[in-house]
């Protein structure tokens, strides 16, 4: 295709920003509509990527290149492969849903809110399609600005603390990555990610680079023990903010591991695999237990996110096809499922303005449709076969078993704990008799809310029933990634691992 489809998808939301910002209107309804149309249009355009994507090659596709800062060899370079394309789709799918979910929940400063979301979409898509180190970094960090504003302006009572914590934590991680990127340029002489994928860094430098990138991605994922910003941010963010945070922003870390750490620093990755395994298993088990003790619905789901992300990092570092594909799949399904769970919390929060689990109970009597949708996503989060969550966890465990059975065994306990806290949450909110007086008039979901969930239901079931349509997209790219890693390791003498 000749025309720049990736740039179009990336920057199309800016049209909405301009429209909302410069067309004077006192009616917040207009801002909502513009944001919905523009983000919906972006999703439709991004479908072109999905349909025109060549599933038989691991090369970057839809590549665009333009000179930018030639002095430092930095250029505007975008493209997608089987890994990043799926995340682009996830982002463009979730943004219009977020706009729709905020339709009634956001009543003040609607214009600014919609502008912030559209700008956020630009940065998120840009990050996934960037093929230049510095372009990647710019998008990666720029995301913090709108997110900071979204949490800080429209968030809950402790929003200031939460927004500062989120901003400073992630900034601290990413500035070290910036220095590492410069060091990479001076070693490799290029900032082109596709060229860097096969560049061999000197061993000692590679270790430092890996650590610098790890600092950034581990905070973003987030991995234990640097996960503490996430529950705060989730609890205080408005519903749609949590959705984007869990749905897309957390994927930056996992994507980063797969795009940078593994292929660019394979030896260091092998060296640090035990560390990643340890932290991930602690995340899986410890945060699952923490989730069990939560009284706040959002906090519970936030901790469950940390646990699920533990599977992602385990899968990525197994260096097996199943593990990596499982890790990507887990990210995608978590993107949909946790987004849906936060929306589910949002539904009752909009009605009752409480996230306390004890505030609710027996909702099934008044809200049957809500009960069904909640059940579906609760089970998807647990990893029930037939939902997207199952495929991801299964593949990760399969990969982990090949790499290290102990890791697989410990990680599987996370699946059980996940079932415990999710079923417990569901029982306390939905089941039982509706005895609480203040709930006696609560209304079931309206059409707008069902419209928000419908695409997510479809995607979750689709991912669970026919995973091939997603696995096919990533398969060639993942194999190519592993091939590169193995070549590099073989060259460095890690014969035992390369032989797998």
């Amino acid at each position, binding site marked *: 295709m000749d025309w720049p489809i990736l740039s179009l998808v990336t920057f199309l939301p800016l049209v909405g920003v301009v429209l909302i910002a410069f067309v004077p209107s006192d009616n917040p309804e207009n801002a909502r509509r513009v944001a919905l149309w523009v983000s919906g249009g972006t999703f439709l355009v991004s479908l072109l990527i999905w349909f025109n994507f060549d599933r038989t090659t691991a090369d970057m596709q839809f590549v665009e290149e333009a000179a930018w800062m030639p002095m430092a060899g930095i250029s505007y370079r975008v493209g997608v492969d089987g890994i990043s394309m799926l995340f682009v789709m996830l982002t463009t799918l979730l943004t219009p849903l977020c706009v729709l979910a905020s339709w009634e929940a956001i009543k003040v400063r609607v214009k600014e809110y919609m502008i912030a979301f559209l700008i956020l979409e630009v940065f998120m898509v840009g990050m996934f399609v960037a093929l230049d180190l510095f372009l990647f*970094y710019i*998008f990666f960090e*720029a995301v913090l*600005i709108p997110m*900071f504003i979204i949490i800080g*302006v429209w968030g809950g009572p402790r929003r200031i603390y939460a927004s500062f914590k989120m*901003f400073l934590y992630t900034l601290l991680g990413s*500035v070290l990555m910036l*220095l590492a990127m*410069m060091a990479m340029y001076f070693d490799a002489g290029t900032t082109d990610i596709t060229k860097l994928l096969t560049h061999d860094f000197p061993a000692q430098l590679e270790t430092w680079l890996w650590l610098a990138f790890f600092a950034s991605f581990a905070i973003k994922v987030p991995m234990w023990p640097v996960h503490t910003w996430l529950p705060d941010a989730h609890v205080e963010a408005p519903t749609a903010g949590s959705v984007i945070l869990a749905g897309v922003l957390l994927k930056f870390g996992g994507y980063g591991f797969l795009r940078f750490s593994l292929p660019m620093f394979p030896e260091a990755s092998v060296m640090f695999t035990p560390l990643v395994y340890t932290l991930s298993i602690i995340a899986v088990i410890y945060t699952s237990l923490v989730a069990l003790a939560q009284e706040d619905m959002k906090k519970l789901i936030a901790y469950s996110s940390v646990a699920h992300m533990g599977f992602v990092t385990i899968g990525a570092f197994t260096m097996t096809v199943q593990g990596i594909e499982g890790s990507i799949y887990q990210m995608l399904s978590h993107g949909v499922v946790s987004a849906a769970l936060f929306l589910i919390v949002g539904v009752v929060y909009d009605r009752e303005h409480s996230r306390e689990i004890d505030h609710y109970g027996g909702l099934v009597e008044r809200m049957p449709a809500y009960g069904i949708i909640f059940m579906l996503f609760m089970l998807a989060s647990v990893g029930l076969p037939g939902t997207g969550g199952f495929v991801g966890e299964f593949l990760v465990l399969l990969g982990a078993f090949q790499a290290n059975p102990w890791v697989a065994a410990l990680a599987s306990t996370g699946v059980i704990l996940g079932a415990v806290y999710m079923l417990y949450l569901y029982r306390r909110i939905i089941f039982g008799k509706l005895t609480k007086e203040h709930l006696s008039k609560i209304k079931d979901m309206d059409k707008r809310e069902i419209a928000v969930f419908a695409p997510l239901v479809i995607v979750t079931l689709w991912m669970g029933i026919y995973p091939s349509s997603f696995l096919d997209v990533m398969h060639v790219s993942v194999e190519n990634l592993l091939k590169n890693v193995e070549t590099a390791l073989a060259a460095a003498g890690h014969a035992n691992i390369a032989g797998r």
Partner: protein
Amino acid sequence: MTIDQIIPALPEVFVACMIMALLMLGVFQKGALAEQDVKSFRLISGLSVGVLGLTVLLVVMLADRQLMAFNNMFVVDGFATYAKVLVLVASAAAIVLSTGYLERHGVARFEYAILVVFATLGMMMMISANDLISLYMGLEMQSLSLYVIAAFQRDDQRSTEAGLKYFVLGALASGMLLYGASLVYGFAGTTNFTVLADLLKGGEPSVGLVVGIVFVVAGLALKVSAVPFQMWTPDVYEGAPTPVTAFFAVAPKIAALALFTRVMMEPFGDAAASWQQVIIFISAASMILGAVAAVAQKNIKRLMAYSSIGHVGYALIGLCVADETGVRGILVYLAIYLVMNVGAFACILCMKRGDRMVEQISDLSGMSKTHPFIAFALLVFMFSMAGVPPLAGFFAKLYIFWAAIEAGLVALAVIGVLTSVIGAFYYLRIVRVMYFEDTEDPLDAGISRELKLLIGVAAFIICFFFIQPNLILDPAAAAAKALLAG
């Protein structure tokens, strides 16, 4: 001396002549009534901005080759052109910023604009100095005007106090600089930069010369307010009238940093090994102090003072590197620093309540609702100063750290990025106050057109710098090359 020997100094000669003319005009315009004062003030301010604009043209016309004048005491090269353009723009912006404030406070006297232009003339001399003597001359011409400007609101105790403090510490700096210069002369036998550079080319500099260089560095560090010579900055920034602070924060800083760069790179460039450690210490200490001390500030002008100390620290990383990439980094940094600060101070000048200026950070609360445009612009400047992409401030830091990593000064770069995270905390605090907090006592609504225009232009540049970064990168690279070649 024939006329074409003065050609390199043509812009300076032009400015000097225009100052005299404006002075005469002002004196004869001045009448008995206060209204007439304001009228002549406006006229002279407008004309001064025009003069500075014309000077930019003159400076640019002289660009692209190296010219010497006055027995090699005065040099014009790409570096000087670049720095002079920045200084002229900064001074013009400062005059525009000050008009509304001075009129409101009843100090609208035409001498203000003339003093600013006078200081600018001194800065241009500093930038073009190719001899320790002409350096000192330019520096003093600048400083004396600045002392007067600091105390311009002469009925105000804080303003006069600021002027006095600035004068005493400025004199101390001049003293140290002179002492250093005399040592350099004593041990090298010359004050000319070109001759000094030739002398140092071969062997190790003598101990006396190094001591001289260190004194010169100390004097210059005081002028750019780098740690450990920063102590005057917060007090002077806080005490001086706000538009004066806006002027101090930008033009003299740029001129002094350009001078600093030239002195270190040109005559003493080959002795880099002997002074590099000193600059590394100054740079690291400035970054750390600028970040840590600003956290506790409640007054926005003091906060800006510490922020500027931090920024000087970042810019000086480029000097630690002591090569072309480093100088390029400094120059890019200065250009972006100029825009950010002019914009931020323009926003601060909008902070008034019932026609009184307020300067506590908490006074900004709820600004995003009462002044959405100003609040958004200040948000942009704050994120940019924190170095968050895709805003211009990020690119400024990028080029500085780039140079540091290339030269292997990794520790310094790590200190730099860590302090920028601490810095982000206090910049974000301003955003927080504006956006996350409400107020019952909003700031005044009326904001003058000049301020809005300046804020708009600055915010636009900061936001969209990333689209065409080469507009600044290329001239900066050329200027750095010119300095290193000469």
